[in-house]
Structure formats: structure tokens, C-alpha cells
């Protein structure tokens, strides 16, 4: 058996050799026979003739030998391939459209699927990733899960979680200032507990992870570096273990280096011990718990064990109607990007579908045109089998070429896509690897085969006589058109759905972009500096830093105003609970708190609505005062004066002395729009309680805001000089114009809107092509009929109308179908649309207009051929 297989394989590989030896053998036979005849006394010429005559057809024998060896099919395949390629070359219009359709739709799919695969499906790069999970809190009512827990929950889980390898970590990174080897830089730091690397299954390449003794409050200051950081700051020196670096101004000892290619749950440059506790950041849900299932623990067991632990916790830790559970790590990590990504991918698949329908329509038309040829072949004895095989081969050739082109297009689109997607945190290693290529190859094949098989199947059912009789004399109409018409209706409907979604997202984006900034963004520069540093964790220290740097900056020529603010406009501010003075603690609500220094109100150009601005005399040691914004006043002190009220927040009491206008910020709590005018309390930086300064700097980095008359270049230079004069070891982590920050705050919405718009456009173009194809083939089929009509006195306009109207009718049907399907799609967009309602007349108008334009053009252009029909020539051709 095996030897037969290898023999066949060898034959396939060495086809040429096989042919040569077969030819040789038969020729030798003929010559031997000839020689024998000559020896028997026959004339050489006669002997030759007789030998050949006796043998019969050499080609036929060769064919039988090939078949006997099982190589015949290979020859047939080669023939089919060559014929198919010739057919494709001879119909450049069809080939171009088909290949372009495949290339564009598969290309779009390749690019987006790479992203989706890397973000959602590709197994995490750790050993046995299916056993990795994250502890989550599930809201019992709606099943929504939250992946963050507080310190007490961590302790309870750690103590009682049997059968699980547990570690706590911080699910995000913070930017910190690092001084290593004399150079200062700004790096991303992630805090993880002891056992984190072990639980992931990724031990450090050099040194070790954190020990339990180091992972407690007050433990040793140690750090583990990433491979890239080690290469960059230490030139890969293997003696780095034991070296000291300055993190936030404090010395840390390097105890480990991670292997190259290691990816933590967030992109980090170095790790430090988490030191989980139940107060400070542990009093809020700021931890995440990684859990690796032991070999003998199953998922349901782990779930019930954690639910049990959850029940022992106090309600204030576990927030009443939630229970503790566990979810696969990949799901928990990709939770927030899952829905938007899948939605976008659904849209891309819809476009692929449109492309497929186009292709099917094209193939159907082509099959009808080739009906005559096929029938003749069959009549000449071709048989259905070879015919179907021929069509199949052509389909495969198309699929392979189209698929290859598609992957090429996709590889060009992917970097573009990633450039938009990375700011969103889709920080994944998306490449067009073998997985993606296989998936796309199969997709391409499935597309063409499924949509190409239908015409083939239809063809094989036609009787020869019927086809030959029909092909000469087609008259208008006929039920043969309905499959194609339905296909185009479906295409148009899908385009309508995509158009509606795209328009809605675009309008939502426009609405968000039009949120009143509340200040003048032009010419304003923001320099963000991380103050998570031992030298800046009291109010006195930051007050001095701000004063010194602002003095310098104000003195620079061209600078109009400068200030420092904990949160720049468009950023997400700190939220904190507060109570009105005199109210019991249960009445606490949430507000945003921002500390400022310098001429904050002037720098931003905020209107002062009541009371007074903060003054330089409001400083450390003087009575604590605060400014609030208009939203705060309206929401919490709606009836009565705001100025003069007292509130308690951040462990201190403050008197409200003024009200200013709203500034746009990213919403930090509640269900509001992504950017809005939330309530804010502004206080002087120097009056912040010391404990809060240190805490806040762990999460937020203040920005120096500078406005210069001479433009942003001057402002940028001024702030650099001012900061360097005040403290040269503080690196600026980001220096940008505030308008750039504005753009950055809406990057997710912009990404979605743009992508959807591009897809809608693509779908529309494809649908237009499909429509045009339908009308064009209708016209060419009806040439004879139209010629007769023109002769009998119809005007060209009437003839034109009779050709165009079916096209418009199809478009209208598609519009109706799409309009019915659109609400479903819009339902899926819930949570992504702001400030607009789905059934707005503007949206409907835009979509209908776009569709009419496309449908009109698509129907008219091919029908214009009618104008050139010369009735005399057409009839004479019959």
C-alpha cells in the first residue's frame, strides 16, 4: 500500500520523466515490430505502416496507460487549469471585477480578522492558557461582570481559594519617572504581587520574581525589568541584578529580568511589588486577581468555591447584589473591547457577503453567456462530470488568485488599521500569521465555491437541446432573472444597513466633537509630568515646585498666562466622594476634584460666574477654599446660593468661594457620554491634605497649561525651560497642544465611525457594480427585442426607461429590505451612540439620497448602450 502511494507520488512529481519513458517504451515497441517485419521480408516503409496500423492509436494507448497508473486525472486537471486561465484572460472585464471584489473584501477581512484574532481568539502566550482565569464580580441581575476587586476580597480569596494558584495585580500601568544609569526616562510600571509570574507560567529569565516578604506594606524596594528596558538602559548587561535604579525618586534594587517577548496583562516596562492591603488603594476596587486552575480543579469547581468565598465577605466589599466568580483570563482581559470589535468584524463580514453576492451574480451571468458553449461540449460527448470539473477548476483558480490578492491588500491595510486602533488600547501583536492566512484562504475558497457552485449546478440541470434552442433567441423577461435580481436586492439591503450604521456613528462622533469646550483651545499647550515621587508627596513640596516653575514660565517672553492643573481639559479627572457640610456620611455623592496652581481661570479663559477666583493668598496654612463649576452648582445646590456653602471632601472641609464655567472632560463616573461637562471642584494645590497628594499622584499626573501669544512653539519652550529650572530630574511625559488631547479623547469613536464609513462605502460601490452588471446583461440579452421596439417606433427615451426601470425597481426593493433590517443593526449599536436617536430624519435622508445616487448611476450607465443600438444592424444579425 505504502509503496503504491510513494510510486504515485513519485509519478506526480516526475510527470515529465513518466511521459518520456512511456513514449520511449511505446516507440521501442513499434521499432521492434518494424524490425521483425523487415526481417520477415517486408519493405521498410510498408513495415512501418503495418506496425503502426497493428498497434492502433498511440495517443489512445498512452491515455489508457496514464489512466491505468492513476495519473490521468493530473493531465485533466492541467488541461482544465489552462483552459480556465485562458477564459479568464479572454474576459478582462469579468476577471478584473471578480478579482477586485475578492481582493477588496478579503483584504478588509484579513486586516480586521488579524486584529480580532490577536485581541480575542489567539491563545494567550503562556503555558496551558486554558487554565488561566481572572476573578470577577458578577452582578446577579444582569450577568454583567466586573474584573476588579478590593483588598479585603483579595485576602479572603487568597486564604480560602483551594485548588488555585493565585496572584493579585494591578490591571493597568502607570507612567513613572525612572533614572537608570544616569539617564532619566518615563516608563510604564505595573504592580504585581508575589507569585504573579509563576502563576502565569513565565518565570524571569534572570533572577527571580517577588517573594512574600517583599510583597507587604513596608517591604523591600525591588523591581523586575522587562527585556526591552534591560537592553535599552543597561545594554543587556547580565550583571544588572543588584543594581539600583531611581523610581519616582526612590531607590529600587533590580532583582530580575523577564525573557524577551514576555507580555504581561498590560504593556509594562518594569514591575514592582503590589503590596496589597485593605486601606489606601486597597479600600477601593483597584486590584485584579489572577488564578491558574490546578490540574485537578475544574472550572465549575473553581466557580462554586469562589462563590462560597464571596458569601463570607461583607456587603460593603462585595456591593450587595453581586457574587464572586471566575472567568477565563482572555475573556476578562478583552471584556471592554470585545463588543465593539465583534461589531466591526460583523460589518466587515457583511461587506464580504455583499462581495460574494456580486460574485455569484457575475458568475451566473457568465454561465448564462457560456450556456451555448457548454451545451455544444456536452452534445459532443463531454459529459457532465468533466464540465463540472472544469467549472470547479475555474472557480478554484479565481479563489486562489483573489485570495492571494486579498491577503496582499490586507497586509497593506493592517498597519493603517493598527495606527488607529493602538491608541484605543488594542495593544495586541496583530500580524498576518499562518492562522489568519489559513482562515482567509478557506474563506476565499468557500466564497467562490459556494457561489460558483450554484451556477454550475444549475448548468448541469439544463438539457442540451433547451440551451442551444434558447441561446439564439432571448426575449425579455423570463424567470431566469429572478435569482440574480434577488442577489442584487440582498446586496443593496446590506449596503443600506451598513450605510445607516455608518451615518449614525458619524453623526454621533460629530455630536461629541461639538461639545462646547468651555475654554479657548487654540494656542494652549499642556505638559504632563508624573509627580509620583518621594520628593513631591506633600502639599508644601508641590506648592513650591509649582510656584518656582510658574514664575519662570510667566517671565518668558510671549507667555500670556500659565497654570498647573491636576487634570487638563479632555482628560479623565479624579473622582472622589463628598458631603455637604452638616450632612451625615450616608448622603455622600461623587464629584470630580482637581487641584490647580497659578492663573488657572485666566489661562483657560473660563468665565467667572459668581464669587471670586482663587488667589495666591489661598495657600497652605490659610483657610481652605474651593471653586466649583456650573454643573456642580446646578446639581448639588440648585436652590439657593452656591458661594458660601461648605463641603467636606478628601478628608478636609472647604468653603466654596466662586463658581466658574464648565470645562469639557472625559466622563469619569456615571452613564454619561464619553466627553461631557461633569461636576468639578477646584482647589489650590497647596491646600490639599498631604495624604491625598501622595495617593493622587499614584494615579494622575498634573499638567502645566501655558498659553502664549506667539504660538504653541513658544509656549512649549517656555514650559520646558521653566520645569528644567525648577527640577531638572523631572521628565515631561507628554507635551502636546490641547487640541491634540481633544482629538485623543475621542479616538475610539473616530475609529469606529471611520471604519464603518469606509465599509459602507465599499458595500455601496459593490452593490452599485452588482446593479450595473444586472442592467448591462439585461440590455445585452434584450438587444433583439429593443431593436424591434425601436423599429416599431419607440423613442430611445422609452427604450432607455424600459431598461433602467428594472434596475431602479431592484434598488427600491433593496432599500425597503434594508430599511426593515436596519433597526436590528441599530439595536446592536446601543451604547455606542450619543446625542442622537436612531430614527432621525437626517439619517434616513442621507441614506436614501446616497442610495438613489448610486442606483441611478448604476442603472443608467450600462443602459446608455441602448442609445448606440442601430435597429437595422441588430435585426440583420438574426
Amino acid at each position, binding site marked *: 500500500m505504502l509503496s503504491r502511494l510513494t510510486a504515485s507520488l513519485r509519478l506526480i512529481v516526475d510527470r515529465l520523466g513518466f511521459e518520456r519513458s512511456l513514449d520511449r*517504451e511505446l516507440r*521501442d515497441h513499434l521499432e521492434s515490430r518494424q524490425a521483425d517485419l523487415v526481417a520477415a521480408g517486408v519493405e521498410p516503409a510498408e513495415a512501418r505502416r503495418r506496425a503502426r496500423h497493428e498497434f492502433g492509436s498511440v495517443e489512445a494507448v498512452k491515455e*489508457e496507460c496514464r*489512466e491505468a497508473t492513476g495519473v490521468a486525472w493530473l493531465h485533466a486537471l492541467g488541461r482544465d487549469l489552462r483552459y480556465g486561465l485562458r477564459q479568464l484572460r479572454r474576459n478582462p472585464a469579468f476577471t478584473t471585477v471578480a478579482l477586485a471584489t475578492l481582493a477588496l473584501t478579503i483584504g478588509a477581512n484579513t486586516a480586521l480578522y488579524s486584529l480580532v484574532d490577536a485581541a480575542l481568539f489567539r491563545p494567550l502566550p503562556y503555558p496551558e492558557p486554558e487554565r488561566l482565569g481572572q476573578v470577577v464580580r458578577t452582578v446577579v441581575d444582569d450577568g454583567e461582570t466586573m474584573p476588579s476587586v478590593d483588598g479585603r476580597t483579595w485576602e479572603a480569596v487568597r486564604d480560602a481559594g483551594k485548588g488555585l494558584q493565585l496572584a493579585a495585580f494591578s490591571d493597568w500601568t502607570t507612567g513613572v519617572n525612572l533614572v537608570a544609569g544616569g539617564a532619566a526616562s518615563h516608563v510604564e510600571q505595573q504592580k504585581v504581587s508575589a507569585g504573579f509570574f509563576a502563576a502565569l507560567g513565565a518565570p524571569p529569565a534572570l533572577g527571580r520574581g517577588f517573594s512574600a516578604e517583599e510583597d507587604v506594606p513596608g517591604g523591600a524596594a525591588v523591581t523586575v525589568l522587562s527585556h526591552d528596558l534591560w537592553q535599552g538602559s543597561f545594554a543587556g548587561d547580565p550583571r544588572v541584578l543588584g543594581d539600583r535604579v531611581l523610581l519616582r525618586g526612590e531607590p529600587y534594587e533590580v532583582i530580575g529580568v523577564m525573557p524577551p517577548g514576555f507580555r504581561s496583562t498590560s504593556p509594562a516596562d518594569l514591575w514592582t511589588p503590589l503590596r496589597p492591603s485593605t486601606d489606601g488603594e486597597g479600600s477601593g476596587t483597584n486590584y485584579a486577581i489572577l488564578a491558574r486552575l490546578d490540574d485537578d480543579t475544574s472550572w465549575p469547581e473553581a466557580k462554586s468555591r469562589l462563590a462560597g468565598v464571596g458569601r463570607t465577605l461583607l456587603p460593603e466589599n462585595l456591593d450587595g447584589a453581586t457574587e464572586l466568580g471566575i472567568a477565563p483570563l482572555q475573556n476578562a482581559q478583552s471584556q471592554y473591547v470585545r463588543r465593539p470589535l465583534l461589531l466591526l468584524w460583523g460589518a466587515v463580514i457583511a461587506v464580504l457577503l455583499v462581495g460574494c453576492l456580486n460574485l455569484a451574480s457575475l458568475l451566473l451571468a457568465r454561465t448564462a453567456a457560456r450556456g451555448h458553449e457548454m451545451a455544444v461540449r456536452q452534445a459532443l460527448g463531454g459529459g457532465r462530470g468533466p464540465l463540472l470539473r472544469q467549472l470547479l477548476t475555474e472557480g478554484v483558480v479565481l479563489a486562489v488568485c483573489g485570495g492571494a490578492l486579498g491577503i496582499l491588500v490586507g497586509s497593506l491595510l493592517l498597519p493603517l488599521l493598527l495606527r488607529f486602533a493602538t491608541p484605543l488600547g488594542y495593544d495586541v501583536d496583530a500580524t498576518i500569521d499562518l492562522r489568519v492566512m489559513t482562515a482567509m484562504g478557506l474563506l476565499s475558497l468557500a466564497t467562490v465555491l459556494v457561489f460558483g457552485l450554484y451556477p454550475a449546478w444549475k448548468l448541469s440541470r439544463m438539457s442540451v437541446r433547451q440551451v442551444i434552442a434558447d441561446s439564439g433567441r432571448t426575449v425579455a423577461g423570463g424567470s431566469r432573472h429572478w435569482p440574480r435580481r434577488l442577489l442584487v436586492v440582498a446586496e443593496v439591503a446590506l449596503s443600506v444597513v451598513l450605510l445607516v450604521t455608518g451615518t449614525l456613528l458619524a453623526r454621533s462622533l460629530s455630536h461629541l466633537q461639538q461639545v462646547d469646550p468651555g475654554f479657548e483651545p487654540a494656542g494652549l499647550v499642556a505638559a504632563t509630568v508624573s509627580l509620583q515621587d518621594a520628593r513631591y508627596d506633600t502639599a508644601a513640596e508641590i506648592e513650591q515646585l509649582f510656584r518656582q516653575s510658574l514664575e519662570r514660565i510667566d517671565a518668558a517672553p510671549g507667555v500670556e498666562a500659565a497654570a498647573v492643573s491636576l487634570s487638563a481639559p479632555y482628560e479623565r479627572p479624579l473622582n472622589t466622594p463628598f458631603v455637604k457640610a452638616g450632612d451625615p456620611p450616608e448622603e455622600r455623592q461623587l464629584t470630580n476634584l482637581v487641584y490647580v496652581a497659578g492663573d488657572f481661570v485666566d489661562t483657560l479663559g473660563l468665565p467667572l460666574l459668581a464669587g471670586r477666583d482663587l488667589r495666591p493668598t489661598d495657600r497652605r496654612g490659610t483657610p481652605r477654599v474651593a471653586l466649583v463649576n456650573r454643573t456642580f452648582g446646578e446639581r448639588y445646590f440648585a436652590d439657593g446660593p452656591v458661594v458660601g456653602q461648605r463641603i467636606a471632601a478628601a478628608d478636609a472641609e472647604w468653603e466654596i468661594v466662586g463658581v466658574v464655567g464648565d470645562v469639557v472632560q472625559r466622563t469619569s463616573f456615571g452613564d454619561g457620554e464619553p466627553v461631557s461637562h461633569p461636576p468639578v471642584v477646584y482647589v489650590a494645590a497647596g491646600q490639599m491634605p498631604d495624604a491625598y497628594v501622595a495617593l493622587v499622584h499614584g494615579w494622575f499626573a498634573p499638567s502645566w497649561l501655558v498659553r502664549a501669544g506667539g504660538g504653541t512653539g513658544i509656549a512649549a519652550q517656555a514650559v520646558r525651560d521653566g520645569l528644567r529650572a525648577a527640577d531638572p530630574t523631572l521628565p515631561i511625559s507628554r507635551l502636546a497642544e490641547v487640541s491634540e488631547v481633544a482629538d485623543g479623547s475621542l479616538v475610539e469613536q473616530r475609529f469606529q465611525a471611520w471604519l464603518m464609513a469606509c465599509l459602507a462605502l465599499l458595500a455601496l460601490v459593490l452593490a452599485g457594480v452588482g446593479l450595473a452588471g444586472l442592467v448591462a446583461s439585461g440590455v445585452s440579452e434584450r438587444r433583439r427585442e429593443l431593436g424591434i421596439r425601436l423599429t416599431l417606433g419607440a423613442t430611445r427615451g422609452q427604450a432607455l426607461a424600459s431598461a433602467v426601470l428594472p434596475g431602479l425597481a431592484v434598488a427600491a426593493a433593496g432599500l425597503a429590505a434594508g430599511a426593515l433590517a436596519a433597526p436590528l443593526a441599530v439595536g446592536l449599536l446601543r451604547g455606542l451612540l450619543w446625542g442622537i436617536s436612531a430614527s432621525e430624519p437626517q439619517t434616513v435622508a442621507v441614506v436614501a439620497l446616497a442610495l438613489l445616487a448610486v442606483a441611478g448611476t448604476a442603472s443608467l450607465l450600462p443602459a446608455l448602450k441602448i442609445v448606440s443600438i442601430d435597429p437595422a444592424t441588430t435585426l440583420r444579425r438574426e
Partner: protein
Amino acid sequence: MADTTDLLQGTLDLLILKAVSLGPLHGYGILLRIQQMSGDVLEVRQGSLYPALYRLVSGGFLASKWGRSDNGRRARFYRLTPRGERQLVSERERWDRLAGAVTAAIRTRPEEV
């Protein structure tokens, strides 16, 4: 001139196997030997020979190798494989059974039916 009789495919296989069992041969030689073995009664139709040979090689009953024939030319020689030997035995038995049955049938006297 000998009679050319139409042979069933199975019979041709049997004759080829037998011819080759007497010693490796190239295609033309097999043709001659079959003629010779049958006492010049059987003449194989030339067009059927090579497909049959290739089929037998593909089935593993014959093995082929290029060598030199007695007049010095290069030719492809066929020889019997162990599997072919077994096949030859079973084909012979089958033929004997068949031939015996046919012989008995045509000798039937009216009264035996």
C-alpha cells in the same frame, strides 16, 4: 496467420503473468512469448498490452526496471513480484474452474438438463 481471438481482460492479465513468470521480459517480448506459449493461436491486440502492463505494475503484481535487451537496446523489463506470483496461482485456479464449467456446460446432453 493465427486466429486473433478477443480476450477478456482477466485472461490477458493471466497470460501476461504467466509469460513473465518464465523470466523478465520487455513489452514486445511478452507479446511474442504469449504467442509462442499458445502455439501461435493467441495474438494479443497490441493496443491492449501496455495498459494491462501498467495496470499490473500499479497493482503491485509486476515490477519494472530499465535494462538492456539482447539486441543491445534499452528497454523496460517487467518481472513478477511475490504478490504477482500469488496472483498467478489464484488466477490459474479461477481459469481452471471457469474453463471446466464452460466445458461441462457445452457437453451437456439433452437428457441431463
